[in-house]
């Protein structure tokens, strides 16, 4: 048995992503499309596969149809006969309870799967984040420290840290405090400008995990959340360590994004269309895989003066046709169709969006299956846009899935 097969990965993919509304109106946050052909969850799953993990349960609950389909179609790649799997686990719905009470409760309610596999360690991942990480480095660190729990940590500015779980560590990277969303985050001991935040990646010794989850389940005052309840209760009692994130993206600055808001979502997507994006999707050393149907190649047609197809600084997915239209600094998901004289600037168009002749789109996110009529404009008149659509703080207009004019 190889070392990696003693590790069971649980990917928590029930995130609601409320601040991503209306992109999360019909789908859970991990199922939100990203970068043309991906979904947010593809990053954690790809990391797991690239790290040699072969036993993965994906815990789903809220609005899971789209996520279920994506994972069933795209990630059913293992051999069960060899004990390898990526399995979807829907919320079992305890009698009386609607959904999981918190992240810890979602694992506690599925403790049965730990019985089946009897892993030595359990790696808990979140399906909400975009990053590239080799979990083997975390696993090695965890074993070296003989830790009960190792939390992967990322450095952000003290100000930004307020939105996250903030850790204090000693010189051996032993965690001495953990506060969820503190008003005054403590800086790291080496650099007063930054704080260590939890990336929502937890590697537990199985036995410790079970014992602490049971204690938490019995604690009637608990909110049953890893960050708020389980981890703080372990400090001073168990061996809890912080593992500073090692980035497989191999750029100057480390890349990890919690795509929490529409503006963060917009910026992270737009970055991909830059000459030298912060996130490199073209690295064969660390491939990010996804589910894609068989698609014809993207194509551009017409080059007759005003009626010319022109595509600049953009991502164009398979199945797209840019027909006599102009596209600049935009992301086009599969099957997008742009008609003559239309113009798309600084925008994200999701699958199956059609832009009519002479329509002009600027700084917008258009969700799937929207047909923008001829001559329509989006992103030029905020008052008009606001009547029909959501507009983010950063002035990005979001047209919801299937919107009809």
């Amino acid at each position, binding site marked *: 048995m190889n070392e990696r097969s003693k590790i069971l990965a649980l990917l928590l993919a029930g995130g609601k992503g409320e601040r991503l509304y209306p992109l999360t109106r019909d789908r859970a946050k991990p199922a939100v499309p990203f970068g043309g052909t991906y979904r947010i969850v593809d990053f954690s799953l790809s990391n797991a596969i690239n790290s040699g993990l072969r036993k993965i349960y994906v815990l789903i609950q809220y609005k899971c149809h789209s996520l279920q389909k994506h994972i069933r179609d795209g990630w059913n790649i293992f051999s069960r006969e060899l004990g390898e799997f990526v399995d979807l686990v829907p919320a079992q719905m305890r009698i*009386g309870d609607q959904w999981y009470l918190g992240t810890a409760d979602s694992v506690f309610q599925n403790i*049965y799967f730990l019985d089946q596999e009897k892993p030595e360690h359990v790696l808990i991942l979140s399906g909400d984040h975009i990053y590239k990480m080799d979990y083997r480095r975390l696993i090695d660190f965890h074993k070296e420290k003989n830790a009960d729990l190792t939390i992967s940590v990322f450095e952000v500015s003290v100000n930004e840290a307020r939105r996250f779980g903030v850790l204090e560590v000693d010189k051996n990277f032993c965690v001495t405090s953990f506060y969820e969303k503190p008003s005054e985050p403590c800086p790291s001991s080496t650099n007063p400008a930054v704080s260590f935040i939890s990336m929502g990646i937890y590697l537990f010794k199985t036995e410790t995990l079970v014992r602490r989850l049971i204690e938490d389940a*019995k604690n*009637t005052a608990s909110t049953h959340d890893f960050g708020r309840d389980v981890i703080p209760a372990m400090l001073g009692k168990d061996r809890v360590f912080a593992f500073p994130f090692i980035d497989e993206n191999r750029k100057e600055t480390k890349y990890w994004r919690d795509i929490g808001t529409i503006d963060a979502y917009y910026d992270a997507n737009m970055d991909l269309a830059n000459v030298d994006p912060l996130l490199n999707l073209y690295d064969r050393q660390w491939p990010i895989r996804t589910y894609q149907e068989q698609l014809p190649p993207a194509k551009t047609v017409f080059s007759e003066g005003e009626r010319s197809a022109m595509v600049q600084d953009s991502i164009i997915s398979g199945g797209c046709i840019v027909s006599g239209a102009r596209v600049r600094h935009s992301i086009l998901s599969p099957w997008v169709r742009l008609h003559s004289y239309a113009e798309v600037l600084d925008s994200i168009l999701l699958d199956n969006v059609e832009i009519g002749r002479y329509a002009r789109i600027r700084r917008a996110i258009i969700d799937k299956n929207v047909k923008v009529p001829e001559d329509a404009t989006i992103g030029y008149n905020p008052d008009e846009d606001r009547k029909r659509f959501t507009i983010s703080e950063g002035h990005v207009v979001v047209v919801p899935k299937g919107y009809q004019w």
Partner: protein
Amino acid sequence: MKKLLLIEDEANLRILYTEELKKEGYDVVCAENGMEAIKILEGTVVDLVITDIRMPQMNGLEALSNILGLRKGVPVIIYTSYPQYKTDFMSWAADAYLIKSSDLSELKAKIKELLGERKK
């Protein structure tokens, strides 16, 4: 009077245990499986639960998970003929794991201990 909930699918044992526990001065309510037990717990205040594991509809370990989900802080004793469920992680959530015996003294002592602890 302390109230005990006994979850046991075998009628003979249910009657026997109920009589024995009543002699000890407890009020005893019974359920034939986990499902029934949860319904009782939702509407009744109980001081302690004693549950078998192998039962139809909902076994004792699933019942235990659901009892914790009710968040009433009620202690639970697993009372089974099978020691092998001790390796099931959910069984660790019980306050005691006892093997059934014709002599109920171990069970009675454990009930006293757990109810005594709760008074503190």
